[in-house]
């Protein structure tokens, strides 16, 4: 019988939620027995395929984030918003009061110490930033929210094991944290 497939991704994230996933420590061996990893920063797969569970870290800050999120929604049966950024934009959403054009100009053009002629990168290869950072549920349907900045390893483990058992991953109070 084939094992359940899990995909993971970091959008406008810091990879901290993935580090917290790794914090389940030896339980990673148990997880490796239970599941197969699809696209993830921990595997080499470039595209997400049909999966049972998708874990999304980070909010949406640019066009590529939106595209990848939509791919995940198409392919994953259950999508989990992992961490404060995916849930409400998180600390990156503190840029929402500022004009993105001015922010880019301040960093790439007007900042002291830049080489002569530095300007805002404009290669089409680069994804354009969105005017504001958004939580992922504003773009696709999200099945479960796993709060925390990051969620603790125990919270991630409780959520994963519940989903793999076909249970509702409702967290007990001590595992719910937003900070």
């Amino acid at each position, binding site marked *: 019988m084939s094992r359940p497939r899990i995909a993971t991704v970091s959008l406008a994230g810091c990879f901290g939620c993935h580090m917290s996933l790794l914090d389940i420590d030896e339980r990673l061996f148990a997880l490796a027995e239970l599941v197969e990893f699809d696209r993830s920063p921990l595997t080499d797969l470039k595209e997400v395929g049909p999966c049972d569970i998708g874990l999304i870290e980070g909010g949406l800050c640019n066009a590529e984030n939106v595209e990848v999120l939509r791919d995940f929604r198409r392919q994953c049966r259950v999508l989990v918003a992992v961490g404060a950024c995916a849930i*409400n934009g998180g600390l990156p959403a*503190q840029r929402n*009061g500022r004009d993105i054009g001015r922010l880019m100009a301040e960093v790439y053009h007007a900042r002291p110490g830049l080489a002569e002629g530095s300007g805002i990168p404009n290669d089409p290869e680069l994804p354009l930033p969105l005017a504001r950072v958004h939580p992922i549920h504003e773009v696709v349907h999200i099945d479960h929210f796993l709060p925390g*900045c990051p969620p603790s390893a125990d919270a991630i483990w409780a959520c994963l094991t519940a989903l793999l058992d076909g249970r509702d991953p409702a967290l007990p109070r*001590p595992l719910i944290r*937003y*900070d």
Partner: protein
Amino acid sequence: MSTTFDLDGQPVPFQPGDTVIAAATRAGHTIPHLCWDPRLGPSGACRLCTVEVNGRPAAACTTRALAGLRVACQTEPLQQRRRQLLQMMFVEGNHFCPSCEKSGGCALQSAAYAAGMTGPQWEEFYPQRAVDASHPALWLDTNRCILCKLCVRASTELDGKGVFAIGGHGIHTHLIVHSPSGRLADSAIAATDEAAQICPVGAILPKRRGFAVPIGERPQDTP
């Protein structure tokens, strides 16, 4: 004549003039709330203390206790309502707990933990009000204000300074400072005033005292 009402099947004694929440709290029960303080007049703003009184929803902080009332507090439909109210309060402000100095000691956050709130279901409003850091000892971030009016009432009812008020309409309702410039520095507030300390969230904070309590030892941390 009986001088008790029924709260989730338990008799709660009350005194004449008591509200449901005042009597229940004195008797050792917990009714979730954010804008109520026994020292101040009622506000009825947060709606978190909504209970069912004889089958109808009512705010426990503005409902007078009466002999024989049947009050339900811990029911699943009420708990679900509380989660929704809390979600509304979160999306209305910029509640980025990971960098808020009130985290771990915040009534809004701990009410949301207790209600089992994990994520929002509505769009974020992302207000962008300027921080007021003009006062030497205090600072004000109204993007975290839940309009509970505890500061407004503390400042009018306890010390008579009347430093705070509520201005604007609808979603643009916000806290304002009574001073010629509208800035905290030009008001009569002192850091020792109850109005400066009563804020249940991270909207009114003391300066130069943040992140002083280790995680695990903060007032709302669970073991």
